């Protein structure tokens, strides 16, 4: 092995895709510097406390547990939590990076052969679209918040009572010119998974999925079938115009397009399938590393069909910072980025000291 191959790889973002990239690199005997802006690793599944993963409803610990413990215990991975990449210069193959610690915690300088960017996503903030009354009316929550409630095994309204009738509203902040025009690809499946979990938890709850199209891709389709066939979950095709708090319940207004009739029905709880959008961390790293963003604010790969390659040599992309995707896809992209970084180090990095 040459010295150059001993230069570490910088991985930015400690979610499923970044963790997988870091672990694969370490298992290929490459040193890794993992920079995560938050105080904990794991990304969205840990932050929002996912209990079960779509599509098979397996415990999320089965995926996240081994990933986290292997990364944290691997001597080749140096983890920088509460940190950010402050600057990057020098040639691809021998970048100089400056890593800063949040709240004035100082800076360190490192040399790295290449960089994997895996800065993930943020949820659409439903307060931006006032029609859903999110943040104003009680008992209107996002699918991200429901994950944690399901994990605790306690889904209740603000009065502490289990809801009897719940509406899930799909495509909140997605597929909408006024907010984000893209489809977040997983929130149909995630919402349906959560509805099934809710039905298991509260046997007599009545659930209504208000959707435009159901996009349970590939084998996630099974969730959709099971929800109807085994759990009696109802589907109403339409888009919600308004959620209104009557003082006791939530009045949901929309059109049932299958009967061409407007509906105004009372619910105890409304769950918003809030979309996936690029967060400020992605915008920031794009600025620091000189990467291009596409018109939606996601990191643009050099070629739209090849996610791994960024617009800059020696910088690779993985996961939801490129486009919305599932955990299974994020993990695969993490591995792909690790492979690209390994190939690159062998080919391009200067053979220092040989």
């Amino acid at each position: 092995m040459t010295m150059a191959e001993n230069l570490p790889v910088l991985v930015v973002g400690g979610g499923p895709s970044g963790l997988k990239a870091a672990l694969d690199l370490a298992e290929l005997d490459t040193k890794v510097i993992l920079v995560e802006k938050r105080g904990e690793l794991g990304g969205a599944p840990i932050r929002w406390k996912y209990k079960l993963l779509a599509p098979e409803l397996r415990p999320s610990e089965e995926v996240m547990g081994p990933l986290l413990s292997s990364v944290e215990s691997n001597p080749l991975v140096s983890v920088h939590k509460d940190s950010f990449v402050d600057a990057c210069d020098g040639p691809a193959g021998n970048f100089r990076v400056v890593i800063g610690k949040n709240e004035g915690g100082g800076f360190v300088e490192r040399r790295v052969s290449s960089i994997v960017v895996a800065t993930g996503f943020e949820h659409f903030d439903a307060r931006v679209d006032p029609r859903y009354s999110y943040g104003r009316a009680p008992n209107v929550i996002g699918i991200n918040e429901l994950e944690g409630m399901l994990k605790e095994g306690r889904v209740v309204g603000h009065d502490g009572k289990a809801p009897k009738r719940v509406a899930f509203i799909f495509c909140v902040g997605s597929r909408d010119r006024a907010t984000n025009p893209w489809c977040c690809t997983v929130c149909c499946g995630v919402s349906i998974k959560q509805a099934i979990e809710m039905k298991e938890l509260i046997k007599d709850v009545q659930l209504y999925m208000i959707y435009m199209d159901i996009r349970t891709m590939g084998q996630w389709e099974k969730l959709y079938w099971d929800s109807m066939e085994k759990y009696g979950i109802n589907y109403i095709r339409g888009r919600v115009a308004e959620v209104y708090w009557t003082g006791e319940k939530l009045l949901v207004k929309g059109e049932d397009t299958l009967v061409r009739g407007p509906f105004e029905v009372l619910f105890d709880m409304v769950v918003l399938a809030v979309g996936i959008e690029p967060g400020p961390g992605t915008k920031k790293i794009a600025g620091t590393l000189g990467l291009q963003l596409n018109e939606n604010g996601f990191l643009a790969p050099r070629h739209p069909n090849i996610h791994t390659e960024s617009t800059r040599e020696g910088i690779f992309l993985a996961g939801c910072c490129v486009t919305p995707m599932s955990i299974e896809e994020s993990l695969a992209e993490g591995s792909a980025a690790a492979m690209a970084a390994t190939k690159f180090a062998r080919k391009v990095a200067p053979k220092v000291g040989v």
Partner: protein
Amino acid sequence: MSGRWGLIVLPRTINDFDHSLLEMVKAHPKGGHVGNCWQCGNCTAACPVAEKNPTFNPRYFIYAAKMGYEQEVKKMKESIYLCTSCGRCTEVCPKGVDPSGVMEAIGTMIRKARS
């Protein structure tokens, strides 16, 4: 327009969902798979009666019965018995609903509710 081909449906507001008819249909020997229906309309597209008679729409009947839309169920009473039980809908249904059987079940349940 969506419910019955060629007919204009006057606007009306739905204020509640009522699944009592659905539960009765489910309990009928031929209506057990009604919950599988995802409203693709393949049954209606294949139905020879629907082709001739715009008030007859198995896809729509199933939905109205499932959600308990009272006005729609009322209207359905006049036409649900037009079904000839030819079974073409059941042949094409991708979800195994057996719409032909469900028509029979809905008809029976409406008749029972009347008596």
